[in-house]
């Protein structure tokens, strides 16, 4: 085990090493390019605006890249950042830094309101609603002539004064921009690798799976959206101070779309990639002046070409090259670490051997009811998927739900996890009525769930997947994430160790830093269960855990399930593999066409007439 932990750690260091070299590249580019152009003021101006756009893009990468929220409202937040500061300065003489701070507050409030209104929409609806919001903001700015100067522009802003020094030169703005950008990237990186950042990536990749692990996805999205707006606000204020005269046309819908183009061209989900995208898009027209008329055409065509052929952008392409080297090293170290003693050892979880005799047999008399289902019904468009089903699940029980296809088993799971609302009937969890609401609340009560096909977060490492399962047990908030407090570091370290132990017990620790694609189907199953166990659930719902596993894996699975039960977790599984069900369960519930047709011990069910008929057809019981 220690050897593997060592490897996991070195891998993290290598990964960190990779990231620092990326930083180095970015820093060198940022320093050398302007040094070369120092005497050309026009190009210096371009550099300053590239850096300012890059600040927006870091926020955009958080929202669109990591959070997968396709919102086109950042141009509007950029505009609000510029105009709140500009109008306060030009009309009321408020100093620029103070105005910029107030702009952040205004943007945060507006982003929260717009977020509440639009973020529950997905895809096209979110895109069109946020594009519409962008148009509302530019038109409003163009119309409120008394405040904003309308379409002819806002004039009369005071110059930026920092520490009694008037900032006027392009190179000074460039310097400030680089400083803000680097801080922005650092904060962004801290956020992404925090508890909050994992929740963001999980919600973006598979919102339902994230909810099932107790992640409040709506709240996470809203917070992320506000963070993105704050990045845009800071950049907007800086842009206004730099330009001195701003018009709504600086911030129109096409600007928003171009920013997304910069993000994808440079490479999303890297934070530093967009800087490359912004640089290329701003520098291209400068070096090829004859192409000015073709600018729009080239930009659009470039956008489409990147999406079609290089979905990872330039940074993605570079990272693939980096990772090829990294992966070779990692595979070598995994090969070195393999020794016969460290084969999967799920039996260590609790004292139950392969012979199958339970050490602490489940006892009906002492167990309390953890889940009570009463008269549960659910219909889809007139077809009853579940019809008046009642049963109890007692603490420490291992119960299976079986039934032919279409019997309503998965619907039952969806009702028990709050994904669907029942048409009738009630669910009582731990003696309290089921709080009808968001699934994450039910997960928080201690109900974990796996899916028929494992739903893992493909944009995260295996260790991170398990850490998302740990979400409800960790406390770090957004501020902790941003500044990396010692308490937060300690919590993260402990959580990572716990997660590694969990992976160790399931025999997949050597893969902790690998990506999901490298896992076999059976390993994916195990990882999904590990992710649930990280929640320390009281009830674990497993949807066809044995499907797709080979015989050896099935045997390991049944040992694992018994061990979990003996460790005190109540288990409810939907399963088709009768041998597995009959050999390990305490009780079986049989559903057919949405109705409960039998319930009892495996011995009883084996002889039940109704069950045989449901499975083999009428008359089967006479055979």
């Amino acid at each position, binding site marked *: 085990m220690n050897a593997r932990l060592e490897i996991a750690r070195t891998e993290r260091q290598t990964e960190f090493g990779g990231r620092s070299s990326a930083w180095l590249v970015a820093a060198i580019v940022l320093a050398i390019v302007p040094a070369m152009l120092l005497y050309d003021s026009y190009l210096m101006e371009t550099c300053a605006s590239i850096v300012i756009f890059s600040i927006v893009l870091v926020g955009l990468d958080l929202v669109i890249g990591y959070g997968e929220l396709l919102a086109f409202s950042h141009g509007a937040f950029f505009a609000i950042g510029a105009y709140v500061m500009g109008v306060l300065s030009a009309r009321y003489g408020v100093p620029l830094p103070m105005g910029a701070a107030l702009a952040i507050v205004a943007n945060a409030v507006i982003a929260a309101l717009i977020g509440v209104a639009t973020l529950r929409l997905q*895809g096209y609806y979110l895109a069109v*609603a946020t594009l519409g919001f962008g148009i509302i903001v530019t038109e409003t700015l163009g119309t409120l002539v008394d405040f904003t100067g309308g379409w002819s522009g806002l004039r009369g802003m005071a110059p930026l004064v920092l520490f009694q020094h008037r900032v006027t030169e392009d190179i000074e703005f460039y310097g400030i921009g680089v400083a803000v950008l680097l801080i922005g990237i650092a904060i962004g990186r801290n956020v992404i690798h925090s508890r909050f950042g994992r929740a963001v990536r999980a919600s973006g990749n598979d919102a339902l799976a994230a909810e099932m692990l107790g992640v409040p996805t709506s709240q996470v999205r809203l917070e992320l959206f506000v963070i993105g707006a704050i990045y845009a606000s800071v950049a907007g204020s800086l842009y206004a101070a730099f330009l001195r005269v701003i018009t709504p046309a600086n911030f129109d819908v096409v600007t928003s779309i171009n920013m997304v183009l910069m993000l994808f061209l440079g490479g999303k989900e890297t934070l530093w990639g967009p800087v490359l995208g912004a640089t290329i898009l701003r520098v291209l027209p400068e070096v090829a002046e004859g192409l000015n008329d073709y600018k729009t055409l080239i*930009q*659009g065509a470039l956008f489409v070409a990147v999406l079609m052929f290089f979905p990872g952008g330039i940074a993605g392409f570079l990272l693939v090259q980096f990772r090829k080297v990294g992966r070779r090293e990692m595979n070598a170290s995994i090969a070195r670490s393999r020794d016969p003693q460290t084969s999967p050892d799920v039996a260590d979880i609790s004292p139950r051997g392969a012979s199958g005799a339970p050490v602490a047999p489940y006892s009906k008399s002492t167990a309390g009811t953890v889940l009570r289902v009463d008269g549960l019904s659910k219909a889809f468009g007139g077809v009853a998927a579940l019809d008046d089903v009642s049963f109890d699940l007692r603490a420490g029980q291992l119960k299976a739900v079986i039934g032919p296809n279409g019997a309503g088993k998965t619907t039952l799971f969806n009702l028990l996890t709050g994904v669907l609302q029942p048409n009738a009937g009630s669910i009582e969890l731990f003696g309290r009525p089921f709080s009808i609401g968001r699934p994450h609340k039910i997960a928080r009560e201690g109900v974990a769930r796996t899916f028929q096909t494992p739903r893992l977060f493909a944009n995260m490492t295996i260790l991170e997947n398990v850490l998302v399962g740990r979400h409800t047990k960790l406390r770090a908030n957004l501020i902790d994430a941003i500044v990396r407090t010692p308490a937060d570091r300690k919590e993260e370290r402990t959580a990572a160790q716990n997660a590694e132990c969990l992976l160790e017990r399931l025999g997949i620790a050597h893969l902790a830093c690998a990506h999901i694609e490298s896992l076999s189907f059976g390993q994916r199953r195990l990882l999904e269960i590990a992710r649930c166990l990280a929640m320390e659930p009281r009830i674990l719902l497993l949807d066809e855990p044995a499907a797709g596993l080979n015989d050896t894996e099935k045997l390991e699975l049944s040992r694992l399930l018994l061990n979990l039960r003996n460790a005190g977790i109540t288990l409810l599984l939907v399963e088709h593999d009768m041998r597995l069900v009959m050999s390990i369960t305490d009780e079986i519930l049989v559903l057919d066409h949405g109705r409960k047709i039998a319930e009892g011990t495996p011995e009883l069910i084996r002889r039940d007439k109704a069950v045989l008929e449901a499975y083999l057809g009428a008359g089967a019981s006479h055979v």
Partner: protein
Amino acid sequence: MNGFWLQVLFGGLTSGSIYALVAVGLALIYRATRVINFAHGEFVVIGALTAASLVDPIGLPLAAAAVLGVVAAGATGFLFERLVLRPMGDKPVFVLILCTLGCSIAFRGAEMLLWGKDPLRLPSFSSGTSWKIGGAAILPQALWVLGVTAVVMMIVGFVLQRTAYGKAVRACAENSTAASLAGIDVKSVIAWTHLASAALGGVAGVLISPIAAIDFQSGLLLAIKALTAAIIGGLDRMSGVVLGGLLLGVIEAFSTVFISSAMKDAFAFAILILLLMVRPQGLLGLRRTQ
């Protein structure tokens, strides 16, 4: 109702018809492929500018120019599907949205190169001064817009409901895999739908060109507006899409009178955002199941 309000209503219905034509094209593509084409507004621009430039510098008769404008728009739509959307395959919605937005920008750049930066206009379809109806002065071109839109809508409705092609489109909308198993040539249905939808956009462009200044920048906003109209009415029902288009035109016309013409887009989108909060499936849309 006095003449003034009647005139505002009429103006609203005229621009609403254009929104409806564009929105029906968008919704057709959406039904056949589940893709919203943000580049759809460009077909309107291509139709309008092709026709206008054929009349003015080249000197073709109006009718021929109008037909060629529609043909140009349809052909562009056909090529767009073949060269961009089909190779994209079944990429996630996320990528498709961005891709059509990128195409919109590319088209805009190409239109600027071809037709310059200034708006071009077609002459009105029939000469003569405005007609007086109930105290309102109605431009003959507005009647052309309303009349042609009504006829086109009837044709679209007939084709979708009564012909084999229409049934194939609806089958693709339900389930394209099942449709292809049932022997429908899904690829060719999609190609023809793109052609038809872009041609509808071209019709809208040719119709509106005499009374609205269309230039290379008009496309994106038109597409977003038409999508707004379709969402207001309900994307998955053609009657809803037409209603949404007309309603959006009328709302804009009245908000121009009551608020300000500079804020009419802002007002339309504010209504969209409010509607999405209370009824995301649109006014006539069907409730989406999970």
